[in-house]
């Protein structure tokens, strides 16, 4: 009898969940609009939209390395497979030209495409859902005023079960809380604004929070994650670096891609700083202040080790020819261009060698207009063993820190995964 009750109870719960998921999965199409012409010529609305789109980093994902702005096609390598970003130019055939504001708002708030299919959470609707109506409208107006590009991105490369999009409804039940949120009660206006920009528009947690087995964000919000083979550092322990971050340094780093005390923005963060360079300064200041307000007491600041007993002669020899012309203390780049010493770089001081390895293999590519930050790639110059030697030398002799235990495996892995 008790067993039967339990089974009946479980069945009821399953049915309720099923119905709930079904209602989330079955979304109607929203009728297409006919005109692809700009919806508004209101310059104030467009300026606001430009800021919203910059702060939301839309372009970072929705533009491929060789493609037109907002036309999509950038491969996003997730643990589940590769997803190609979509075309969000106002092209009616391949972009969002036939989307009404209502369709756009539903995509932002609920992760649903105009025709009703569910979007993959690589699109950060779990964060964008908190956007204000006004910001959604401004972003829509701005995107609809862009040049339409007729381009269809490549098909996603996902295993079969994940290609069945209605299954995303279950994921949404776990992680999507639709709608605007209250911000930080009692905080001043700037912190409130920073909270909104970091957690909603900026969706910082998409990279800077670890993901669980089904791609949900872990509990330690902004506690650090990985993206595309790069370490996205913790944003809540910025005091435990060799030089503790200040709000001023963070703001400057976010707007210029370079901090004289911490190093340069690299990998996926580079593009984020390029977009923030276009955003209102007051907003970037708010982001920096909010982030500094959520610091948790972490371990004591990094302690340098007085000595190490690692053989680093080979690394020193290679460093002298390959790296020293820019990275030695006496090199013009250090002496007159005021670039930070490698001893201060997060890539060197992190417990995770991923970012140093990535930078050595792939360099820091030219980017216009931020071309002053550049490093050539060394993947074709140095063997894995040589990369390891140099990394060991930098970590021990320049960083004065204990060795990375997993360095060799990480180098082999990085080259295989990212630079095949």
């Amino acid at each position, binding site marked *: 009898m008790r067993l039967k009750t339990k089974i009946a109870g479980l069945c009821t719960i399953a049915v309720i969940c099923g119905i709930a998921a079904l209602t989330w999965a079955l979304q109607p199409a929203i009728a297409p609009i006919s005109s692809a012409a700009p919806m508004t010529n209101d310059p104030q609305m467009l300026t606001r939209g430009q800021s919203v789109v910059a702060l939301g980093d839309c372009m970072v994902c929705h533009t491929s390395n*060789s493609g037109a702005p907002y036309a999509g096609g950038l491969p996003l390598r997730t643990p589940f497979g590769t997803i190609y970003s979509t075309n969000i130019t106002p092209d009616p055939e391949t972009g969002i030209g036939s989307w009404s504001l209502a369709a756009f708002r539903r995509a932002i708030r609920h992760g649903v495409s105009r025709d009703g299919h569910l979007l993959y959470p690589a699109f950060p609707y779990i964060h964008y859902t908190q956007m204000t109506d006004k910001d959604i409208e401004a972003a829509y107006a701005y995107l609809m005023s862009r040049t339409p590009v007729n381009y269809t991105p490549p098909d996603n490369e996902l295993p079969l079960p994940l290609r069945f999009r209605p299954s995303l409804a279950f994921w949404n039940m776990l992680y999507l809380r639709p709608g605007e949120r209250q911000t930080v009660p009692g905080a001043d206006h700037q912190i409130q604004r920073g909270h909104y920009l970091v957690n909603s528009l900026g969706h910082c947690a998409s990279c800077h929070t670890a993901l669980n087995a089904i791609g949900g964000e872990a509990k330690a919000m902004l506690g650090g994650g990985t993206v595309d083979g790069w370490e996205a550092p913790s944003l809540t322990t910025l005091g435990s670096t060799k030089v503790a971050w200040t709000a001023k340094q963070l703001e400057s780093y976010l707007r210029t891609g370079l901090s004289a005390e911490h190093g340069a923005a690299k990998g996926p963060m580079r593009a984020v700083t390029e977009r923030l360079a276009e955003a209102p300064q007051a907003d970037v200041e708010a982001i920096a202040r909010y982030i500094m307000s959520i610091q948790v007491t972490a371990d004591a600041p990094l302690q340098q080790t007085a000595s190490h007993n690692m053989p680093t002669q*080979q690394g*020193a*020899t*290679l460093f*002298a*020819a*390959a*790296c020293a*012309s*820019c990275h030695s203390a006496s090199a013009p*780049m250090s002496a007159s261009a005021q670039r930070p010493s490698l001893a201060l770089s997060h890539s060197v001081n992190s417990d995770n060698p991923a970012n140093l390895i990535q930078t050595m293999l792939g360099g820091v590519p*030219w980017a216009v207009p931020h071309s002053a930050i*550049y*490093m*050539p790639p*060394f993947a*074709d*110059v*140095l*063997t894995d063993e*040589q990369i390891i030697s140099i990394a060991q030398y930098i970590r021990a002799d320049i960083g004065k820190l204990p060795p990375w235990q997993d360095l060799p495996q990480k180098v082999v892995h990085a080259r295989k995964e990212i630079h095949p």
Partner: protein
Amino acid sequence: MTTKINLNGIAKTTDSAPSSPLLYVLRDELKLNGAKFGCGLGQCGACTVLLDDKPVFSCLTPLAAVADRRVRTIEGLGSADAPGPLQAAFIKHQAAQCGYCIAGMVMRAQALLEKLAHPTEEQIREHMEPNLCRCGTHMRILAAIHEVAASGVLHAKKGLK
């Protein structure tokens, strides 16, 4: 200390310090002056040579890193009397003005044309992007590369290296 390298198909032993950049070893010890010193920072490409068939900046390539690996320089592609296909095309299209960048340009183009039989205009431009020319002969450089690319001759020779 000596270092053994395979230079233009010939085994060579050098006496330079292992911490020397390859460019200095090529020019100062081995007297191969084709590769040029431009910036010394891997930003201009004048020093480009091929290391295991891939283009690298020899100014930032440690001698210690190329031990027992294959290095090719412009001198390995041909001579003034018998220029290689790219060298001949660069001469035909008068792709050099001051000429300082040209050895690096030819070597980077060589790597591409050995790898791809018929690269597109976009692929050529993207591949040549790290090498700078201050005289502005880029259109002639591209024309020379296109001509050799159309013949496919370097790709066909790939197996004979």
